[in-house]
């Protein structure tokens, strides 16, 4: 693979692009499967290879619906105790790798993986705990519409998503499924729980 500048942007879904634009060489944290899929879908749509390590509950149909090209998807459902080595090997050849770490990782091991990410210009999306992340995206509140007392079916979902970036104030936005798109403009930069700025 040709070498790329480390801060190069990686294709992201239109609904996420101003919320969490993915940058090559960075690690992102998520807290749910739907967000993890949404993070990789943009790159996969753009023709990149993606991989999932430690996700035995991969939902192939949902991924395909979101635009993940299954023929360019590599799964290692159970990487066992050597999941760090497996992830590093996947990062070598894939553009975006989703990892569900089966155990906590220390800062040193994460640092080794970080440098590997930078040299290969790949993106790591961690579903779980990770020492240092560029941004952590989590679902704050989720509402499904459709089912009413046994009738109907699940139709659509709206979720309030919070993006936290180190010391910077959190951002909040509403996303709507199916097909991740924005249901509301980006809210003011301030975290509302601590009171708006000014």
């Amino acid at each position: 693979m040709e070498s790329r500048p480390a801060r190069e942007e990686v294709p992201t879904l239109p609904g996420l692009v101003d919320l969490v634009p993915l940058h090559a060489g960075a690690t992102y944290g998520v807290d749910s499967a739907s967000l993890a899929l949404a993070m990789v879908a943009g790159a996969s749509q753009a023709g990149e290879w993606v991989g999932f390590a430690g996700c035995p509950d991969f939902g192939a149909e949902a991924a395909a619906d979101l635009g993940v090209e299954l023929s360019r998807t590599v799964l290692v459902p159970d990487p066992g105790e050597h999941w760090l080595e497996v992830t590093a090997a996947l990062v070598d050849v894939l553009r975006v790798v989703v990892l569900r770490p089966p155990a906590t990782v220390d800062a040193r091991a994460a640092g080794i993986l970080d440098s590997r990410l930078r040299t290969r210009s790949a993106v790591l999306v961690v579903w779980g705990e990770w020492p240092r992340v560029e941004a952590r995206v989590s679902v704050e509140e989720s509402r499904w519409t459709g089912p009413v007392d046994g009738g109907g079916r699940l139709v659509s979902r709206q979720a309030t998503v919070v993006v936290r970036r180190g010391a910077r104030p959190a951002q909040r936005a509403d996303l709507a499924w199916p097909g991740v798109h924005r249901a509301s403009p980006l809210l003011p930069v301030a975290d509302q729980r601590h009171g708006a700025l000014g």
Partner: protein
Amino acid sequence: MRVLVVWCPDWSVVAGLAEAGKPPRTPAAVLSANIVEVSNGPARAEGVRRGHRRRDAQARCPDLELLTANADRDTRAFEPVLATVEDLRPGVAALRPGLLAVRAPGSWFGTEANAAATVCQALVESGVWDVRLGVADDLFTAEHAARTAEVQGWEIVAPGGSAAFLRSLPVHVLEGEGAQGREVVSLLQRLGLTTLGDLAALPGDAVEHRLGRYGASVWRRARGEDPALFAARTPPPELDVEVAFEPPLESVEAITFSVRTTAERFCDQLARHQLVATGVRVEAYSEGGLCSARTWLHPRHFAPRDLVDRVHWQLQGAGSVSGASSGLRSRKDSGAVRAPIDRVRFVPEVVEPAAAHGEALWGGGSDDLVERGVARVQGMVGFDAVRRPVLQGGRSPSARQALVPWGERAVDLRPIDRPWPGRVPGPPPVRVFAAPPAAEVVDEGGRPVAVTERGVVTCEPRRFRVDGGVLPWQPVSAWAGPWPVDESWWAGGAGRSARFQVVGADGRAWLLLCAPGGWTLEAGYD
């Protein structure tokens, strides 16, 4: 030109029984769409005929072996028969599975009877028990001569004797030529023509007027004037490649290193015939005996490097006692094979024209890199720990997808374009649990929720939890369902079950299955 025809009656039954490993005298029938297509002698003795429905056939002969129609299997099983005859006399034409023609061997065997006896003996020795031969001036006569012969016998029609031989045959011998033949037979019988001789005695132009082109061809053949020639096949090239090690090798690393040039030779040889292999059987021999054999299917086609990888995985899997255990294999573990290998052989099982697999002029380089990287991961965690997701048809979310080992082709997928009634509508779940954890769903009073035989929910779900620390007790904020299914009830399936979409208090939705064995959590929508 004299023609020798070899006829193996009821070939699809013979081939089906051989593949099923049943003795050849078992009463058996090949069915297509629940209608008997071919039955064998023992089944016919019980009254099973072509055109019977499955249950009629089973009523006549309860221990009837039912085989499915499979043209590929028949052709495949006929290949050794062709090869046996080819050994004696080149220029064999396979007319259809079970029937072959060859130019009658002439003076080499003395007489034609001697030639027929030699061919017959060779075939019986190769394990084809029911074989009949016919020799005549033309193909049609020779085929019918073979059909009148006894088991392991032959019928020789003297030169110029075709018309006399055919004259006495009843018209229903044409039924073997398919629907067109059956139609003509029915018409001829209604016209009062019972033998081919009666037909041959009619004026040719009148026959063509009444019976059309096919009738005219039958008329010409019935007069022993069959002009049909057959195209002899070219024997398929020998594409197997093997390498012998002297002295035998004991470590996988050494073997994989040594097969590299052989793998290149294998692919070069295929490329010379403008072919590529998409399925290869790798056989490893130790002390003359087969110690490991496995068929590998490639999603595209095998390159030398892929073959070397397959040899590595195969011998590694056969050698280590623990098999494909999770985790990194230690060097010591991966190095040993069970017995010293003295020969490795590549047999192409599926070859396709290279033109169908041509690579684009530009590009493909990045994919190549991925292949290599993934092969490295496979080396770390075992070849079947790396998967590729594919979609297939089904009702439950886990049935609608399959995780295929990387580098293998997906086989036996259910068609996705069928309606699959009973599947849960709505967006597909993002998490599909391979081993669904047990769950509990109760109503307000704490009674477990169930579904009656009529698909009615006994009480309203109010609270649910999932075992294994996945979800503690929580209230149901919304629910939808049930979507009842009763899959494979004809084959003792899992029984009636029903699916529910349940939204928990935290806003996450789940797919729960209420089966006779209790509730399970099948999938999550997040």
